[in-house]
């Protein structure tokens, strides 16, 4: 029987995510890269005590709304941009493993506010180390050495080792229970292509969890994606779900 990884709804796609799950959430922080509908489905499901892994913990509904208004004339921001802050604001997150939890400047993200209130824990990770730890999980590498962070707070509690006269830190693979990612096109085997800068952590996280779920703009026939240009081979992807043609705006993510 033909393989078909496409599932029919976001709710179905996230149905087996339990309380306490470790979620690798794709994107970088911009409006075009987020697995928005998967995040909304996790919010809808109401699971708690989540660990979120990714670049940011999200900007927050208020800030996103503000950005959308302010940028409207120079950079149209899609109305269906939901980011991990949706989960933080609803109290579903217990821990973040993040590179960019704090907003630049003096406003606060929902993650910062929750941290100050003592509601979330943070492991602050250099972005390159975060990406490599996730890639290591995909690649079956349990641990590796990196120069980044030697002599700083990042090194606390970690093995430091010298190779060829330079010092390196031992870093562990970061495997998720579920990777929630966003891609442009998929086929029924789960092969994925991305679009421009939305590739980022989405492609890195594909295959780095027990289950990888891809939110895509479109599913095409097997064979339509050029084998030379497929970025994520389907072996890394477990489920594919298609975004709605008509965006659902932020005030009704449910």
């Amino acid at each position, binding site marked *: 029987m033909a393989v078909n990884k496409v599932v029919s709804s976001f709710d179905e796609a996230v149905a087996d995510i339990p309380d306490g799950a470790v979620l690798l959430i794709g994107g*970088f*922080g*911009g*409006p*075009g*890269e987020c697995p928005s509908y998967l995040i909304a489905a996790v919010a809808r499901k109401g699971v708690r005590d989540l660990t979120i892994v990714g*670049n940011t913990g999200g900007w927050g509904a208020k800030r996103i709304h503000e950005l959308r208004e302010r940028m409207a*004339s*120079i*950079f*149209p*921001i*899609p109305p269906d941009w939901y980011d991990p802050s949706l989960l933080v604001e609803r109290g579903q997150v217990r821990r973040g493993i993040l*590179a*960019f*939890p*704090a*907003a*630049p*400047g*003096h406003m606060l993200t929902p*993650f*910062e506010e929750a*941290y*100050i209130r003592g509601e979330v824990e*943070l492991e*602050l*990770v*250099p*972005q*390159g*180390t975060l*990406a*490599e730890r*996730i*890639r290591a999980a995909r690649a079956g590498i349990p641990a590796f050495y*990196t*120069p*980044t*962070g*030697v*002599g*700083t*707070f*990042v090194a606390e509690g970690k093995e430091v080792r010298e190779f060829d006269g330079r010092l390196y830190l031992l870093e562990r693979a970061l495997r998720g229970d579920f990777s929630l990612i966003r891609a442009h096109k998929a086929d029924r085997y789960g092969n994925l292509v*991305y*679009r*421009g*800068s*939305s*590739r*980022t*952590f*989405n*492609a*890195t996280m594909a295959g780095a969890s027990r289950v990888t779920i891809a939110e895509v703009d479109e599913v095409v026939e097997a064979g339509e994606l050029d084998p030379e240009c497929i*970025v994520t081979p389907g072996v890394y992807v477990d489920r594919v779900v298609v975004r709605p043609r008509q965006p659902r705006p932020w005030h009704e993510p449910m």
Partner: protein
Amino acid sequence: MAGERLDEQAMALRAVKEFRDGMVVNLGVGIPTLCSLYVPPDLDVIFHSENGIIGFGPVVTDPAEADVDLVNASIQPVKPRPGMAIVDHAESFAIIRGGRIDITVLGAVQVSERGDLANHQLPGKALGSLGGGMDLAFNAKRVIVVMTHTTKDGQPKIVRELTQPLTAPRCVSLIITDIAVVEVTPQGLLLRELVPGWTPEEVQALTAAPLKVAQDLKVMELL
């Protein structure tokens, strides 16, 4: 009375003067991102951004050209450029960690006289954001800091010892501020250029580490 201070655009312009043909350059958040706007058309610089876009063009100024799926690491829309390539985040940092970045231009909260960099946590905030800055500071061939010479309340940002959290030790080689250009050398800080109207003594007064004055001290040229 000291001279005027440079604005952000002028500092970015000065940083661009360090770029050479073929260099791979990564621009940090803030003032550094402005550099992409000031690269002369005949200078073939390859801009790398953490989110995996290599060889992109300047920041978009015409909203009609903005693509939500082509942004730099400051999440500003940029123009495509012939020869551009896209990689994922792990490969983007393989490029950084592998030593392929010729210059990174970063903002800073503080820089010490040894080139120690503090740039991931704003004073008074409970949390910092490392972003890609720590990987860049540890691994780029050359780290150039662009920042105001002093904090908003007039405190020096160039210091003997950092009082803010360390992002990377002994990494900064050049500091471009709104009043001067200072090189970090094994013998300490070297004042190389002055913004017009400023004297070495005035710059020293706003710097919390001793400055040697370069024998060929210059007035900063931007063009």
